[in-house]
């Protein structure tokens, strides 16, 4: 039977893995890592691992975590994922303040700059808002209900961001769209006024970040996508300002054109107040640095940092505003056909500065494991073990890549296959 060979994506649960994620406290008080359903937090101030306390009834996460994030003021931390639970943690006590059920799996989260609203997006394209007024951080809130804020029509939302001035909420989806919506005074009534659509990507948009400096407090939006570009936008008008072909800049050009997702941008990281973007790319062993000239509104690739170790392809990036450290992680929630249940490897780079004075002088050094803040204790907490064998990295990167493609790239069927499937349809019998 023809049906015995699925053309990818039909045995979804098997290849469905989640990449490891990392997030850093705005003033580097702590650092959090999510691998699969496991949430690991290390307290950098106290130099010790943190035990999370969850008394909201449903203990911890039961399925892969897809998004983690600290609030801008560092008081809140939110985690959410495939188990349809959105958990809000206080970063003082690391207790779970509230746990909200989503109707669908959660794919992205954002916290408003004043820390009063948490927004999360589900896989059906609806963004929900959660009102946190009257939250003092210690008591456990119950019966919180999320209200629908806006919706992309049945498209997976891949990233959510608030603009630096808090006026807009920006959402990106797999249908190549970035939508800029005015964040209303009363978000619970929904956000109806669309400021602009940023259109120009030719594949799914995978990540968003804002660049803003003292001269440009409104900030510019940068987005990464499956079309292997990073683009710069003016969100007021939705104008595309510049495009950086990161795939070719990083030396990953695929002339064949067959491997579409070869240089998908997986994550972007910017420093508040800076004009440098760290870019993680699928299949790039290392990090690409892109600088942005905000006066002329152009993007330029600066350099590739590749001495991070063999086969180290970061899946997530994080940094804080205070220290000049760039935190990177590679890993996967589960790895089929290997001894490892899950895998995570953290590497830290120093010299991630706000500006690039002379582009050639930009020094980003990879810290050895004993130079990392917290040293072995930190690595043991976040990675699960101090040493991780590097052989499995490639397999992990491959699994993450496959899973992402399945999720975000439209499936292509041949004409014959489409006709074959139509044969089963009641109303369209093809006479033999």
């Amino acid at each position, binding site marked *: 039977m023809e049906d015995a060979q699925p053309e990818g994506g039909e045995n979804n649960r098997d290849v469905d893995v989640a990449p490891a994620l990392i997030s850093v406290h705005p003033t580097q008080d702590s650092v959090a890592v999510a691998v699969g359903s496991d949430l690991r937090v290390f307290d950098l101030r106290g130099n010790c691992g943190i035990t999370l306390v969850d008394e909201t009834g449903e203990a911890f996460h039961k399925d892969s975590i897809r998004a983690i994030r600290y609030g801008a003021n560092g008081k809140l931390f939110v985690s959410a994922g495939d188990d349809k639970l959105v958990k809000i943690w206080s970063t003082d006590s690391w207790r779970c303040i509230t746990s909200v059920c989503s109707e669908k799996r959660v794919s992205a989260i954002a916290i408003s700059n004043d820390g009063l609203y948490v927004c999360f997006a589900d896989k059906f394209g609806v963004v929900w808002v959660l009102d946190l007024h009257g939250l003092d951080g210690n008591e456990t809130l119950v019966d919180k209900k999320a209200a629908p804020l*806006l919706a992309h029509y049945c498209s997976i939302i891949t990233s959510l961001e608030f603009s630096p001035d808090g006026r807009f909420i920006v959402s990106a989806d797999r249908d190549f769209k970035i939508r800029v919506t005015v964040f209303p005074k009363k978000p619970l009534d929904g956000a*109806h006024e*669309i400021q*602009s659509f940023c259109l120009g990507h030719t594949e799914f948009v995978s990540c968003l970040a804002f660049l803003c400096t003292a001269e440009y407090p409104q900030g510019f939006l940068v987005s990464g996508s499956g079309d292997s570009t990073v683009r710069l936008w003016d969100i007021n008008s939705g104008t595309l300002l510049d495009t950086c072909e990161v795939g070719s800049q990083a030396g990953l050009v695929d002339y064949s054109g067959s491997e579409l997702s070869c240089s998908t941008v997986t994550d972007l990281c910017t420093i508040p107040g800076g004009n440098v973007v760290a870019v993680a790319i699928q299949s790039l062993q290392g990090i690409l640095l892109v600088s942005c000239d905000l006066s002329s509104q152009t993007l330029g690739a600066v350099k590739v940092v590749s001495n991070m170790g063999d086969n180290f392809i970061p899946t997530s990036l994080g940094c804080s505003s205070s220290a000049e450290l760039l935190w990177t992680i590679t890993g996967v929630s589960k790895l089929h056909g290997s001894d490892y249940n899950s895998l995570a490897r953290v590497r830290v780079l120093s010299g991630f500065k706000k500006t690039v004075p002379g582009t050639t002088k930009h020094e980003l050094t990879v810290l050895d494991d004993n130079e990392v803040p917290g040293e072995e204790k930190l690595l043991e907490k976040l990675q699960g073990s101090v040493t991780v064998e590097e052989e499995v990295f490639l397999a992990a990167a491959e699994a993450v890549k496959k899973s992402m493609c399945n999720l975000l790239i*439209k499936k292509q069927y041949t004409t014959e296959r489409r006709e074959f499937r139509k044969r089963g349809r009641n109303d369209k019998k093809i006479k033999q």
Partner: protein
Amino acid sequence: MKLGFRFSTAAQLLAPICNNSVKGAKGKLRKFSDHKDVNGRRTELGRQPNPNAQDISFSPFKNCVKKDMLENEANSTISKSTGLPRKRFYRARAHSNPLSDSHFPVPISPNHVEYSHHYPQFFSSAGEVGSIKKVQFADIGCGFGGLLISLSTLFPETLMIGMELRDKVTEYVKERILALRTTNPGQYQNVSVVRTNSMKYIPNYFEKGQLTKMFFLFPDPHFKEKNHRRRVISPHLLDEYAYVLEVGGIIYTITDVEELGDWMKTCLENHPMFEALTEEELHADPAVKLLSTATEEGQKVARNGGQTFQAGQGCDFSGGVILAGALLYQQASSRTLLAMLVG
């Protein structure tokens, strides 16, 4: 027997007839249950499909016309008397899933839409830069294009576009417009049609505030609650419509399904960016008159309406059952008409 039943009970009434195992009735039943599965509105139910027509339109040869047959084939799809394409060669399923992944090309942004292909005369005569006209009317789910054709002569200087998800129907409208352009030189240059999923890709075609009128005529009712998100008027989609409409732009909706009418009314009334037009404005608007008369769907409602009414008197019950199912809504509702104003 009283006729005060809903669509689903009409199916039950049909069952005893079919139990007689009359061949024709069996055929009807199958047709009917197919229709129920897709949960949409009635379309061709009233008419017995011409089996030959179906064969031709579904046969694989349709799209790859053989060279030597080209003359005959090409001519046969066009009516000799009117020069217009014949609808029976463009039969399509009544519904298309708006949630599915699309496999047709979508413009990256409004700047990438080649409007000069759609309106060659407007763009060739415009010539100089700066005088380029933009599309101002959009007929969402234009079907066979009846409204567009009527609007075209009513607003000859306004560019308008129909958007339709079913490719065969789009093809028909395209042929119809081209035929009308040849038979009426100088006319119908301002209408065109695209095949797209307007629920997903409206911002890919229009800029902010570009449109002055949007038409949603006789949309799919999608009765089941689980399918409400497929309705073309919904609270979240109205955000996008408000984005492409200019301030003061108008949304026109019409339906013969009371339930959907109430839904659309509620959606529009509760949306902060829309407000209702006054009665006077409604009467003054020349487009409003076209809503119920110009579209094929509207004509069908009117046509069937007459027939049912007679069937409702109890004369020809068995023959009228399918028709009655189709138009009880029409009877029940007072043809909900909403015209809303962006404010």
